[in-house]
């Protein structure tokens, strides 16, 4: 791969913007928030973060926001990811490895169905207590 400069990056970005104008605006309000506290990092949250970026690009959902946050209080189930899609409940998923991340993209963000066996709703005992 040739070394990209900031100018090259801008050109690539402009190309993408031109493609994006033809797409659905609903995705703009969807968010994937990955917990990247010490617990998340130790459990592989960065690979999860990478898998989301990769899979969203493959599905052409390039305007979904992918953000990071600290520990969400579910250290026992890291990596954790919160997914916000308009018209659906806000959901925190636990134990999101790369395969699960890809599944969340295809089922939740594309198919509008929850990935039920990874849904969590309660923080660890020392967070509530």
């Amino acid at each position, binding site marked *: *791969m040739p070394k990209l400069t900031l100018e090259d990056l801008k050109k*690539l970005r402009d190309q993408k913007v031109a493609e994006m104008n033809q797409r659905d605006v609903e995705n703009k309000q969807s968010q994937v928030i990955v917990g990247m506290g010490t617990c998340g990092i130790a459990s592989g949250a960065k690979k999860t*973060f990478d898998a989301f970026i990769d899979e969203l690009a493959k599905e052409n*959902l390039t*305007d979904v926001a992918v953000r990071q946050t600290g520990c969400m209080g579910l250290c026992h189930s890291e990596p954790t990811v919160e997914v916000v899609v308009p018209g659906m409940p806000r959901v925190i998923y636990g134990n999101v490895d790369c395969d699960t991340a890809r599944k969340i993209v295809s089922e939740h963000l594309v198919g509008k169905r929850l990935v039920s066996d990874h849904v969590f709703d309660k923080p660890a005992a020392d967070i509530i207590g």
Partner: protein
Amino acid sequence: MHPTVCDTLLDVVQNAFEAGATRVDLSVARTGNLLSCSVADNGRGMDEATKRRALDPFWTDGVKHPSRKVGLGLPFLREMTRSSGGSFSLTSEPGRGTTVAFSFDLSNVDAPSFGDAPGTFTALMTYPGDHVLSLSRGEDGASYSVTSAELAETLGDLSEAGNLALLREFFSSNEEALSPAPVAPFAQPLLT
């Protein structure tokens, strides 16, 4: 402990963001077998007592989770350096900021692997908040540097998945240019 140096960088740079820094300077440079890293922030800093406690794995400032009793980021890093003959220093001044500096001797059999630099820098450059992160990266004399402000100016919204993919490509290409892969003996055609 974290498996790679890059995982540790993610953790320590986030500490800097959470300390209210508006400017964080990250430097990661390798010369020969010596990998030197430093994270300098202009955040709220720590007094001597807090600085000592920050290295205790069973202490945290209680800001994020008031009932929690562990804080593992810096203790993990210090143990990584201790167990592989590296160095670690923590300097801080209340109101002025904190600098975490550490190094690894890569010839030591226990030195951690470097990890995924493009993914790590992509995550760090797009961490939400009102701050500027400056990265200075070097490998045996070759180097590049970039700031989050430059990237935001170039790409716009750094949280969009499409921009994150582009950013990853940017860092992959720059990392590749730092240390070109050696030419395999049979990479050239044998017959011309």
